[in-house]
């Protein structure tokens, strides 16, 4: 097998997702290879469905989603190693009672053991500046801390793209900015769904999802304009 490119692009071709008879997403054609991409839109417009397609949490009813050479319909497991996903509610993502155990959890599934494993966990804790949380019980963490642990548990898998689905809703201004800074410093490609319009002003590309279609695709400023028009109508 040829080595995969460092950061393979994601390509959606003619993607439609149907749920209970209605199209939640319709005829989406997209190539995502920018470094920072934002997705905005009203409640129920289809944002989460769109980003869940990218790591095979949702499979297209019609069309294909490709990450590099792989398609989500066939290679779900390998794609999930490349495309990490941070959920809105970090509590869903936390599995083990201790923070270190929780972060190690995904890496264990990749077959790592012993010092290799602990080194990797320590490295990611250090990188996010949350080494002090290492031995805490995960369920006693505050909202902001939980969100950082959830991010660590994704980054430890060393994905090439990280998708965030509304990661800042529970957070105060300080934690929001901390997370934002963390995302800004990621080497990986980041695709961020958010209602927090301030957060995305520096992004390269913004998609506005409306009623199951990509209604706008371009500069953040223009996208915001478009979004405000929709939400005020």
């Amino acid at each position, binding site marked *: 097998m040829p080595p995969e490119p460092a950061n393979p692009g994601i390509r959606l071709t003619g993607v439609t997702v149907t749920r209970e008879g209605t199209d939640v997403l319709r005829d989406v054609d997209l190539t995502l290879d920018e470094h920072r991409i934002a997705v905005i839109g009203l409640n129920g417009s289809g944002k989460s469905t769109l980003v*869940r397609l990218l*790591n095979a*949490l949702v499979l297209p009813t019609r069309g294909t989603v490709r990450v590099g050479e792989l398609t989500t319909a066939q290679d779900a*497991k390998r794609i*999930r*190693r490349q495309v*990490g*996903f941070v*959920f809105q*509610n970090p*509590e*869903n*993502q*936390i*599995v*083990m*009672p201790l923070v270190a155990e929780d972060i190690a*959890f*995904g890496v264990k*599934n*990749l077959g790592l053991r012993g010092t290799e494993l602990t080194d990797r966990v320590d490295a990611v804790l250090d990188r996010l500046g949350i080494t002090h949380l290492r031995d805490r019980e995960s*369920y006693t963490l505050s909202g902001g801390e939980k969100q950082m642990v959830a991010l660590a*548990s*994704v980054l430890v*898998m060393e994905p090439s793209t990280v998708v965030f689905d509304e990661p800042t809703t529970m957070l105060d201004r300080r934690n929001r900015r901390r997370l934002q800074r963390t995302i800004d410093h990621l080497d990986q490609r980041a695709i961020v769904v958010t209602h927090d319009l301030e957060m995305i002003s520096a992004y390269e590309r913004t998609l506005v999802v409306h009623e199951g279609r990509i209604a706008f695709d371009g500069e953040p400023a223009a996208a915001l304009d478009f979004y405000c028009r929709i939400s005020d109508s």
Partner: protein
Amino acid sequence: MNGSRPGGPLAAVPAGCKFGFLFVASIVLYAVPHVPAQVAFFVLAVTAVLLTRTPLRRLGRLLLGLFLVVGIVFATLVLTSTWEAAAVSALRLLSLCLFAYAVTLSTAFSEMLALFETLLRPTRHLGLNSAQISLALSMTIRFIPEIRSQYLAIREAQFARGLHNSPVAVLVPLLVRTLESAQEISSAIDARCYDSAPPARRPTPPVSD
């Protein structure tokens, strides 16, 4: 939740009477181990179910499992004992279940709950309280879909982390989240003036004037 509203003549009979009948029928059916009597009961039971005017397709779906079960019982008994005993057992089981379905299908869920509340009223002497019981009953219905969607969200999060089908890893966060929301829900209920101990029964607080 119960599908359509119950119709037919049996719907007019009070729920208490129907349950009383069911109780008596269950005794009589065991008291008479003769094939002709059992056939007569069976015909009566079929009539009762038909009187509920349930659409036949829905009825079919409901009763398919029952027929399967009775089939197994009948086959096993024919092989291990007499043909007659097998017939009596199978018919008895069928009639009893059909009567029970007739009661269920002809009684509205709310009527059923009201009956249980009446029946449970004496338990207040044991320290239970019927308002609390009916709150628990309604809340259960409300939270089944909630637990389901929480389960789906958690499982999805774990798929995303490369974990497939580990029951412990799904159940632990599911329960912790459920317990945490239980706390918030009970605050919300208290905030809406719910009184779990009705004044009459509340231990009198130390009156400090």
